[in-house]
Each structure stands twice: as C-alpha cells, then as structure tokens.
C-alpha cells in the first residue's frame, strides 16, 4: 500500500462530508429521523399513561346494566372477589348478580345452556362465566348476547380487571411477598454450566431468549437500513463524479484510491453520526420523559437484564463492526457507481449491491432465528464469519453479550480484511473504468477491463 495512493483523501473526505450535510434530502431525512427519535418516547409514554388512566380501554359510557357471575368452580367461595372490576370508575355503579350454581351438579352443561337463553333475552347484561377449561385450568369467560347493546370493549375491560384481581388473589393465597411475586413473574432460562479445572464455572448457553432475539433482529434491521442507505448515497456520488465528468479534472491531482476512500469514509461518518445522534436523542428523550413523568419508559418496556452485558467495550466493538460493515457495502457501492457512465444506468448497476445486501441480511436473519434454538449451529457460525452478513448479525450478538470472544474477534478480522480487499478491487475497477464512457459495463466485462488495466504500466 503506497502512501501516495491515499494522498489527498482528507480533502475528498472533507468536501464529500460537507456536501452530504448540505444536501437537502439528506437533511430532511435526518431531521425527520431525529424528530421521530425525540418524540417517540414521550408519545409512547403518553399513550401508555393515558391507557392507564382510563384503563386499557377508553370507555366513556357503559351500556351494560347488569353483570351476572356464573361461578361453576366455587372460586367466590374461596374468597375471590368477582366484583373487583367495580374498582374501575366506569363500572362502579354496575350491579352484580351472583348466580346460584352447584359446582358438583352432573347437569352443569345443560344448566349453563339454559342460563345463556336468559342472557339472550337481556341485551344489556353480561355474564362472567368462571369454569375449568379442558386442561383443568381456571378460565374466565365474559359473555354477552350476539345482538347485545354491550360493547366488546366493556367485556374485554372487565375481563382484564378480573385477571389482574385473580393474579393478586393467587399470590395472597400462597402468602408470597412482593419480591417473591416478581421472581415468580420472571421468565426463567435453563443455563448449562461447565466446571473448569480450577473450580470456576463458565456458562454453556444453549440458545437465546425470544426477547434477546428481538434485540438482535432490531439491530440487524437498523444496520441493514444504514448500510443500504449509505451505500446508495455512495453509489450515487461516484456515478455523479463520472457522469458529470468532474473525474477527469480530479485525477490530475489525486489517485482513484484516495478518491473512493475519502468519499466512502465521509458517507460512513455521516451515517454513523446520524445514527449515533438519533440513538442519543432517544435516550435523552427517555431520560427527560422519565424526569417529568417519574417513569423510565424504556426500563419498564424492555425485558429486565436484556442489556446486562452492555459495557463500553461491547458498544465500541459493535460500532466498529457497524462502521466496517457500512464501509464494505460502501466500497461495493463505489464499484457499482464506477460501472455506469450515465446516472440513468445506476439503478441497473446497483443490483450487485442490493443482491449482496439481501443475501447478507437474510443469512443474518435466519442465523438470528437459529440462535433461539442453538448458539453453536453452523448457520450461526457462517453468518457471523461471512463478511456480507456479519455486519448485520454481530453488533446485536455483541450487545446482548452472546457469542465467544474468539468468534467475535475472528469475524472482525475477516470483515476488516474483506474491507481492504474490496477497497483495492473497487479502486482498481474505478481506475480502469473512470474514463470509460461506452456502453454499460456488465460484470463479465469487468474482468477484461481489469486485465487491460493490469497489463499497462502505472503512469
């Protein structure tokens, strides 16, 4: 790698960076994404708290005039309060009529059918039917007539209030404290442990939880979008250099390597700043909203302990992988841009980029799905090590603290080497085709051009 090959890249970087930030469509997209990030938390928090105020279901007027409690299993006799739904302001005046049911009756089903006929005649009544289902679990049915005046929302709201009450009833019955109740509510994972020779234990995780899968999926989606957006901007910028013929002037002072490197790096930095600021604004917005409402929205909504492995090293590693990924796709985009002579040809030329991006993202997605079953599947290793999919999968894997260090570092090394190879290939193609103004280049023609470029001595 000769130093002179890169001479002047800083000027290309500066110019491209400034022009990118002056670009109106980039600015509009950026402002929209920043506004969305700033407003998302307060808006979601407001919606969430408004649901809490009015109950999950916003009901202004109750149409029901009576609630029957048809308890087939004698839950009321055990102390369960079936009138608990009246705690909600909208239902406080709703009369509750307990139905006398014999839990041991042999004609229970027929009795229930007879009772429901009565409900058909009373369009404003609701029946809370407490029974055992096929798996012998408690079941609450909230029943109304098919032509009832009572709304679906009223029934669902009553049902949800009863379930809430039932959960509390369960814990009270077992005399569990609040901490114990929380512990019981947690989703448990089975963790295999390996004992080292020195007596310490290392985790032998078999798979990831659904919650962690969604984190990996979310990061994958964001990185994929960033890569394709950044890469398209790079392809457009390179094609514009060619189609506007500016290239010929620039090549008197700078090598193609420096041109493509500066251009791609400027886009990568722009995209990472855009993404970082968006992320930062979302966190800031969450913090401010938390201070105002006293409720940390993200903390309450995200599963507990999902980012327990998050530390500066992991964050830095994830950012490096994302940056290398955007660069990889940027260099491929540069290659696509260099292959066109007119802007109109760009759409067709970027098929190489879009195909690579689609294959990479699907590979990463399937690997993420496979991670829910096994962390040692060949698909997982393939997606983490193949450079077109690793930028999508690895950041998420790193952020949730999964995967062995050796595979993360190996993946990073492969990605870096691939970046260098694609940079040099792109620059070679760029150099060979920069002054080409003939018909659209097909991939098979590339070989010929590269051979010709290689055959000539450097000027």
């Amino acid at each position, binding site marked *: 790698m000769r130093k*002179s090959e890169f*001479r*002047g890249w800083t*000027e*290309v970087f*500066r*110019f491209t960076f*400034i*022009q990118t930030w*002056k670009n109106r469509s980039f600015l509009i997209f950026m402002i929209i994404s920043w506004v969305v990030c700033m407003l998302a938390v307060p808006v979601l928090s407001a919606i969430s708290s408004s649901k809490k105020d009015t109950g999950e279901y916003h009901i202004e007027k109750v149409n029901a005039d009576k609630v029957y409690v048809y308890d087939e299993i004698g839950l009321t006799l055990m102390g369960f309060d079936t009138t608990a739904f009246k705690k909600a302001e909208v239902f406080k005046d709703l009369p509750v009529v307990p139905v006398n049911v014999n839990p041991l009756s042999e004609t229970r089903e027929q009795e229930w059918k007879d009772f429901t006929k009565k409900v058909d005649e009373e369009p404003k009544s609701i029946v809370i039917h407490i029974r055992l289902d096929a798996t012998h679990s408690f079941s609450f049915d909230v029943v109304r007539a098919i032509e009832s005046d009572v709304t679906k929302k009223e029934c669902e709201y009553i049902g949800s209030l009863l379930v809430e009450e039932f959960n509390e009833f369960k814990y009270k019955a077992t005399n569990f404290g609040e901490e114990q109740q929380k512990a019981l509510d947690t989703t448990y994972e089975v963790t295999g442990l390996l004992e080292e020779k020195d007596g310490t234990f290392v985790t032998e995780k078999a798979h990831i939880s659904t919650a962690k899968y969604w984190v990996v999926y979310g990061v994958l989606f964001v990185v994929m979008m960033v890569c394709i957006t950044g890469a398209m901007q790079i392809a457009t910028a390179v094609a*514009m250099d060619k189609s*506007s*013929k*500016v*290239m*010929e*002037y*620039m*090549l*008197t*002072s*700078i*090598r193609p390597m420096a041109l493509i490197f500066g251009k791609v790096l400027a886009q990568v930095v722009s995209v990472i700043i855009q993404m970082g600021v968006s992320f930062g604004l979302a966190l800031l917005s969450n913090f401010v909203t938390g201070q105002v409402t006293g409720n940390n929205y993200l903390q309450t909504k995200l599963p507990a302990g999902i980012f327990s492995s998050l530390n500066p090293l992991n964050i830095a590693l994830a950012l490096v992988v994302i940056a290398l990924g955007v660069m990889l796709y940027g260099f491929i985009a540069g290659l696509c841009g260099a292959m066109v002579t007119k802007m109109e040809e760009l759409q067709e030329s970027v098929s190489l980029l879009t195909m690579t991006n689609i294959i990479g993202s699907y590979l990463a997605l399937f690997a993420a799905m496979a991670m829910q079953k096994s962390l040692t599947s060949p698909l997982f290793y393939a997606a983490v090590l193949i450079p077109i999919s690793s930028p999508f999968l690895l950041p998420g894997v790193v952020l949730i603290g999964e995967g062995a260090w050796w595979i993360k570092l190996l993946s990073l090394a492969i990605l870096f080497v691939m970046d260098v190879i694609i940079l040099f290939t792109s620059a070679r193609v760029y150099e060979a085709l*920069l*002054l080409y103004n003939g018909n659209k280049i097909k991939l098979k023609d590339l070989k010929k051009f590269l051979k*010709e*470029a290689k*055959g*000539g*001595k*450097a*000027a």
Partner: protein
Amino acid sequence: MSFVVKDLVKSYGEKVVVDHLNLEMDGPGVYALLGTNGAGKTTSLRMILGMLQKDSGEVFYNGQPMDPKSMNIGYLAEERGLYPKYSLIDQLLYFARLKGVSRSDAMKRIKHWSNRLELDEYLFPPKNSKGRAPKPKLADQLSKGNQQKIQLMAALISDPEFIILDEPMSGLDPVNTDLFKEVIREEIAKNKYVIMSSHQMPTIEEFCTDITIMDHGKTVLQGNLNEIKKGYGRVNLFVKCESNGVMNDSIEGLIDEAGLTIVEKLPSEYHIRVSGEAQAMEFLRLLIDQNINIIRFELREPSLHEIFVEKVGGYIPTAEEKEAEAAAKEKEGEE
C-alpha cells in the same frame, strides 16, 4: 528545463490508439497536438497526466520521469465537468485544496479569476435593494460558455507551471473566445509550458511554435510550425480581379495558359496552386499584359488548416516533392 515524451504507446485490445508518440519541448512555450476526432490526442494527454496507464513509453520533465501528482499541473479537459448541484465556490475551493493551495490563497485567486473572467455576478452576486446578497448560482444554472470559464478557473487556480488545454475554445462565442485568448496569452507570457489541443487551426497558428499532427494514433507530421510551412514553400496564390463574366473567362484561360491548377474558385477570387515564386511572377505578368484590374495578388505558404487537411485528409506535395516530381516528369519527357 525541458519536457520530453518518448515512445508513448497505448492499445485497447488489438487497436493501437497511440503509436509511439514522441514530442519534445526545450523550454517553456506552446505545443500543439493536432488530429481528427479519434486520432489519439486526448488519450495521449491523459497518459501524460498519469490518469491513464500507458502500455509503454516514458515522460520526462526537466530530465526526470514526470510525476503529475506531485506537480502543479493545470488541466482543462475536453469533456467539461462540474458538479451540477454543488456551490461553485465550494467546488473551486475543493479543486484548489486538492492542488495544495491554502484556503485563503484559493479564495483570493477565486476572486481574482472571477473578476478577470467576468464571473462576479454568478460567484459573488451583488446585494439587492433589500441589502441581501442572492444565492450564488449552481453549475447547472450557468450557460455552457460560463461553465467553461469556471473550468478554466479550476485549471488555473493553482497557478500551474504546466498547462494542458484540450479544446479550450470549443463552443465559445467570439467575445469569450477573445477573453480566453487573452488569458492564455498572459499565461504564456509567464513562461509556462502549455500543451494545447484544438481543431481551430487559426487559434493554433496564433499561439503555437511547435506542432504534432496525429492520425489514427500515428504521428504524421511534427516540428516547428514555421519550418514546416517553409518546407511547403509559397505555393498558394490568391488572385482577385474586378468582377466581370467575360473577364473571369479570360482569367481562367490565362490560368490554363500558364499551366496552373485552380484549388478553389470563389465568386471573384481564385486560389491557385503554383510551383513557386517564379511561376507566380510569370502569371502576374500575364495578367498585367492583358490589362486585367487586379484587386488582390497574394502568394503565401499553405495555412495550417491546409497542411492538416493534407496530412489527415488529402495530400499536398511539398515544394521539394514538387520539384522532384517535375524533374521526374521532365526526365520522362526527354526519354
């Protein structure tokens, strides 16, 4: 101080587009690279500039292999290029920075050239009645001629020691052509190396001391323009007489009588090919003897245009060749 191109070759597959090009400049001056479209001029210039890889050959500047990236070269490309949607000043600053010019110097030079090339209204628009300066124009809002001026600015902004101008005047109106000529003259006066490629032969004759004519990649004529012309001799005679149908017939009769060839016949003027000064004088005597009123009688060397057409389109024998041909004919007659 010298600039030498030695055996420059470039092929695309089987096709040789530049075939052993050699040229030499002993010192600052203007060198013209001529040829028809596709003759290999632009390819040669691109190889000299290092933007295109050469198959073989060498380029030396001041006795050392030329490294265009480390030199201060100004290049006006045949295919003009500017970013259509970026600010012109941003682009010029960028081009200047790539050439290593500091930002403050670049800004000073932009102001100088903007004024010199009469571009102030586009680059530094004056404030309007409300005291606000309108936004400077973008490249795609300028006319072709003004875009070309911006390109010339970009080529000269680093005050280059070596200038390559590929078709500098094409597409310019007469006023801007004169402006470009003035600027080029100023640069020549600063003792710079200038290589110019053009199809406008009068422009080349105006500026260049040495030429190379290329045809299909090969060098068909090379040397000092004056020497080349001298070599052809003063064989072009332009005769204009008082317009009169009868008179014209008699002039044509006299041309026949003198054994001369009409190259071109204009309404009241003839371009005649003569073998030399003596034949021209003989013909002048004939006209005087016939009492024909002569308005113009001019004997001169062939123009560059004629030489060019001959070299790449037709064939005009040089004075020596003519003499040799005449001698051969004489000999044939004797036999």
